[in-house]
């Protein structure tokens, strides 16, 4: 029914199923957030896109679509098309609908809940099997402010991310102080085009959040391995 209009465009980019570049100056990147329900995917994305944090829990239905365009220093723009998926079990079978053709996948777990870490590993495997071959994945341990209730050691996240060639970050307001140094370190590295985009985007968003969020969990140390 919608052939031609949608199939091509559901891909991560205008003309590439998995890519990062549409034209030289205007890049379009499809990003999908996956993870168990209640880990804070929507909070992360709303913080990224709108700089807002809403502590009331709003269960996502199906998937929400948000986009965010950022300008890089060299005057290119990157438009992120973000699919914030519902974590509920009943939507798991529909996930390919949202991650198909995604250039970047952000997989989120809650550091106080080992089940959500297991679920995150499930999503990593699922993406390795069925996602784009060159998808860039980031593992995010959310709610790091609840450190006293932590049940997933940071090292476990780092190890798993390293093994699977993913970025790793733990997000929480309490350790926001480290963000700048980490990003500086991060930006100094040699990156592939897409990783650079991701880095730019994450750093700009994370950096801009710093200081705004005091009470609520968000943002923090940023480790990555490739």
């Amino acid at each position, binding site marked *: 029914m*919608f052939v031609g209009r949608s199939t091509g465009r559901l891909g991560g980019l205008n003309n590439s199923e998995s890519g990062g570049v549409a034209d030289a100056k205007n890049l379009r990147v499809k990003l999908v957030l996956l993870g168990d329900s209640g880990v804070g995917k929507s909070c992360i994305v709303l913080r990224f896109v709108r700089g807002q944090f809403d502590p009331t829990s709003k269960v996502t*239905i199906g998937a929400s679509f948000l986009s965010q365009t950022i300008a890089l220093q060299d005057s290119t723009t990157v438009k992120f098309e973000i699919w914030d998926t519902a974590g*509920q079990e009943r939507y798991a079978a529909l996930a390919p609908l949202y991650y198909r053709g995604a250039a970047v996948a952000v997989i989120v777990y809650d550091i106080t809940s080992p089940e959500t870490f297991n679920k995150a590993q499930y999503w990593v495997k699922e993406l390795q099997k069925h996602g784009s071959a060159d998808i860039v994945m980031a593992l995010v341990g959310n709610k790091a402010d609840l450190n006293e209730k932590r049940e997933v050691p940071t090292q476990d996240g780092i190890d798993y991310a390293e093994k699977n060639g993913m970025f790793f970050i733990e997000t929480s307001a309490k350790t926001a102080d480290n963000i700048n140094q980490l990003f500086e370190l991060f930006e100094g590295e040699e990156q592939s085009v897409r990783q650079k985009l991701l880095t730019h985007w994450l750093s700009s968003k994370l950096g801009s959040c710093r200081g705004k969020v005091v009470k609520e969990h968000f943002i923090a140390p940023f480790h990555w391995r490739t």
Partner: protein
Amino acid sequence: MSSSDSSSSSSVDDPNPNPKPLDNQFESLNLEQESESTIIQNDDGEGQQDQESSLNGSLNVNRNNHEQDDRIDGGHVTSVLWRRTNSEVEVDGPSSPSSSGYAGERGSSGASEDDEIHEVANHGVIDGVFDSQAAWLPGKRHVDEDDASISWRKRKKHFFILSHSGKPIYSRYGDEHKLAGFSATLQAIISFVENGYMDELGDRIKLVRAGKHQVVFLVKGPIYLVCISCTEEPYESLRGQLELIYGQMILILTKAVNRCFEKNPKFDMTPLLGGTDVVFSSLIHSFSWNPATFLHAYTCLPLAYGTRQAAGAILQDVADSGVLFAILMCKHKVVSLVGAQKASLHPDDMLLLSNFIMSSESFRTSESFSPICLPRYNPVAFLYAYVHYLDVDTYLMLLTTSSDAFYHLKDCRIRIETVLLKSNVLSEVQRSMLDGGMHVEDLPGDLLPRSGSASHLGQHQQPTDSPGRFREPFVGIGGPAGLWHFIYRSIYLDQYVSSEFSAPINSPRQQKRLYRAYQKLYASMHDKGNGPHKTQFRRDENYVLLCWVTPDFELYTAFDPLADKGLAIKTCNRVCQWVKDVENEIFLLGASPFSW
């Protein structure tokens, strides 16, 4: 409204060409039975009732079939009683409070006081809030309770969903997991009857009456639904509510969930419904404020004909490009909707869909693309819904069968939004929300020439004499002849229009009481066991209720309890005429997808 092509042979059925027939019907009875039974039955209605059912979808037919099945205990008797005991002279003592539909309302015990507070909190404490949804707090409450809690036991209306193995799936109050034992008991009752307690196979338990409590059962394959209520609502109404709850579950999961039980009878369904408590509690709340839940019809936001046409035209545009249904709604009211060829949308599906959208906060945050199932359209398949809020109350739903259609639907939405903004539809919608619809105070006089229908709706002035109304609640207030409220349901259009609430039906509780009274009227008017009724006049301490059912429409009216019967009847005719005069604005006419 297509009242003119009434196929009934009886001339009294069509009020619109000649608003007198209702008077005629009552005339003889007024003479003979001045203060006796005032129930008027017209026995020639049997065939018409059938015809109506077929026009009105399958719901009434199904219900009536079910009703003829066995029931445990005398639920049947109760509904009959209600009809037979009411008369102008007889005050039916114990059941009188029940006309409010609310047994605990008089606050008889300390514990029910707790309920009192709870109910008030539910429905808003501000008198005169017309929109009784406004103060309702979404989400499930009292999760700490279980069947051992006294407070839990005192709740007036419980709803449960459980599996055929007795596993709890949903409970209105309390934590499902703590209610496992209680669920198992319900399951045992159901299977005891099913497994040959009676002679024939296939027996099903439908109703158990225990004191003032009714326990209503509904079995849907491996899913059991139970309502335990002391609200004295009719069995048919409670059963209809269970049907809607089941429909809501199907909307979220489709009937494919049955397969999980085939594979594993002990399957635990609660994780599949994760995060949907709010959807069910919102639906259950709507049973007490939204007449669509028992009328099985939808209502439109009043709009100038041209405005609605403009909205319909752009929706039609996108429907032609492969959208199955395009629906523009403002809260629970339809602004416009179109369907692809041959696709028809059942009012119950619209109710469940809009409840689902409105109760899920995440739809307000950003545009969404979600699988949903329309149980009346196709209970086994998912459709994909693109949902976007155009403003705080107005939302667009584009439904398609294609899971790949997101970007196309997004483009459609952008086109629609642009047109709606350019043609001021959205601002008109906002204005209509503020102005409200039909106010009984504006009911045109009998002999006044009607100068353009717009004047009746569009120029409503807030009544300046309203302060006096609060002081003297039992004199003629509201509309003419003591008219307080009405609901008009068009059979052919599957739509209803309800007048705005005005003094003295101000508080959400009074509104809820009136809806419960209407709901009883509806159930009694559609009870085939006693033959279809054409009119019903009922006077009690709260209201005069006058109901009139024809093949074309149903009219439910509430008057001051001291209202004069003859005047009330005349007023009903005027209401019908008024509705006809403004039908262009209050109904969605023309190319509707409701082609039964």
